[in-house]
């Protein structure tokens, strides 16, 4: 009887020991000092930087020029290698992409840029502008809204200087622009530009 009590005592003691060891070890797995991507600091930093870049691009008009930097005859953005959107880190063909490259890609931070528009049924559809892969679980997204009008013109960079110049083609006569004309008045469409950044 006493032997059984002793045995029981030792079993319970060992359970207590192992349980507390397990608890102590699993708590130390994540600290703010680890170099993982799940740090709140880094997320806040990236969100602030992305909002700043997007707001500057909108105020200076570079964002509008980048959204309208569309090759109507080939049905894609100017300067892409393959497909409709940019996938390679090549010489940025317009000012908006150049500022994104300087702010993020040169520091090892990946980004995606999507242009979300409303189609004629009222659904939101997404047109990719830059795609670098699936974001990690700690990516941040910042957005801004832009209105396109019937008399906006498409932009191109015919002289290759990295600055987009207006063409003569108006949006309402463009044949293959990704967003449709949803209004009978001078409003063409309302788009939201989403920039998603994450640390690789």
């Amino acid at each position, binding site marked *: 009887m006493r032997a059984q009590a002793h045995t029981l005592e*030792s079993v319970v003691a060992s359970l207590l020991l192992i349980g507390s060891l397990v608890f102590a070890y699993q708590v*130390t797995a994540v600290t703010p000092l680890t170099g993982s991507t799940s740090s709140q600091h880094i997320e806040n930093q990236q969100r602030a930087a992305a909002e700043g870049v997007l707001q500057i691009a909108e105020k200076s008009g570079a964002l509008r020029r980048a959204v309208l930097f569309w090759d109507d005859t080939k049905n894609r953005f100017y300067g892409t290698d393959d497909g409709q959107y940019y996938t390679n880190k090549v010489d940025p063909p317009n000012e908006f992409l150049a500022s994104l490259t300087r702010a993020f890609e040169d520091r090892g931070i990946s980004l995606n840029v999507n242009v*979300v528009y409303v189609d004629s049924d009222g659904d939101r559809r997404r047109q990719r502008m830059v795609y670098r892969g699936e974001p990690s679980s700690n990516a941040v997204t910042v957005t801004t809204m832009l209105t396109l*009008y019937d*008399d906006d013109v498409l932009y191109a960079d015919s002289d290759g200087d990295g600055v987009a110049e207006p063409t003569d083609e108006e949006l309402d006569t463009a044949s293959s622009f990704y967003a449709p004309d949803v209004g009978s*008045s*001078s*409003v063409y469409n309302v788009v939201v530009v989403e920039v998603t950044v994450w640390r690789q």
Partner: protein
Amino acid sequence: MASVDGHRDRGHDDHGHGDRAQMVLIGALAVAVSLVMLAVVLNSAIYTQNLATRSGEAGTGAAVDARDGVRDGVGAITDRVNENHAGDDYATLTGTHLPAAMDDWRPAAVRHVMASGRTFRVDLAGNTEGTRIADGSVGTFEPRTSGANPLGYGSPNWLVATPVEVRHFRLSDVSASDLTSASASFDPQTTSDVFFVEVRETGGSDAWQVALYEDGGKVSVEVWDEDEGSAVGSCLADSTATVDLTRATLDGQRCEPLAFLDDVDGLAKIYYVNSDDVSGTYELTVDRAGYQTGDPLKDRVDAANYDDQCSGPTYFDSPSEAGGGSPYATAAIYSTTVDFRYLSQSVTYDTRFRVANDEPGPIAKHPKVIDVTVTDNSDSGASFTVSWSVTDPNGDLDTISVELRRDDSVVDSSTTAVDGGSDSGSTTLSDSDGDGNTYTIVVEVTDSESNTRSNSETHVADDDASGCPP
């Protein structure tokens, strides 16, 4: 507790081992408890760090961003309505075209915002009337009728608008090959063939000249401040450029010298000087209505350009009437007031704000004379009945003074108190021995903040409404 100095001969090895085992057990328990304490301390440190790095905003940033997005959207829509429906009257613009454009824009914008679990409402709550003066065909910047020379230098020159608050003032498609060649810095008033826009302020004595000239095949802009007697600065663009005076940009790039419109004291008088030395298009939106002949803006401009409010005229009444000529002045919406309500999970934002795209300086606060009708009742002496109508964007009208002047001296005057946002009335002025003479009738309205605007007309005291001057 069992004695530990051991009686080896008493009891089994078990007891001795049992004693040591108990010691080991207690020691191990102490280590385990200290590890748990360590874990608790570490946990609290991690939680504190995590709590400290959380952003503390309550979501109000998104509400303000939405409001700014609506402001930009409604402002651009108002300008597009003014431009695409130039020639329609003000009631059609505000009653039909602007709501139609808003009905196209609003669902798409709300659809986007709803995807993040928020929504907003935008309702049009009012407008103020203005005039859009534009030249849509590429060519020189000359008025409809030649012979204007209000300034006395830099012929041909003419008065574009006065005295007005101006917004959305843009010169487009200006090509360097049609400009005169010059090099900075120079005094625009002393050259005879460099085009410049002259802006004189009514609240002070300063004036600015924005000169466009060709420099090395490119369009160059220089801003000259008359008070200081020197150039403020200059900017260089491409061979074809768009000069935006209210946004202070040249071809989309910021040009700081062009930001002088923020410093204008009072209202602005805008002149084009050497207007045949430039080629392009232009448009500006001013806060006075006056697109029909006989209205205060046209009368004032015609009087300054051609000596009488009935000569000229300076503008065409619509783009279709202008045909290939220029310029035309049409009804336009100067500002739009919207009610905005934003709802998200934690924030409800309700506000009413005014939208006037590209308005430099403080918001328009000057009262305006919207109608002056003079009836000539002269019999043996001069007698005029002046009916007037005035408004104020802030609703703080104060007084109106009507003066009858002959040869720049006042022969009769009357001051009436007015209040509110709009008022009208009539005054009779007379001069006993003035039959057949030419008089100037000046109507000046002042608001409670001492902002004033005036209007003047020339009449001949002959009991006859025909002829020029009437």
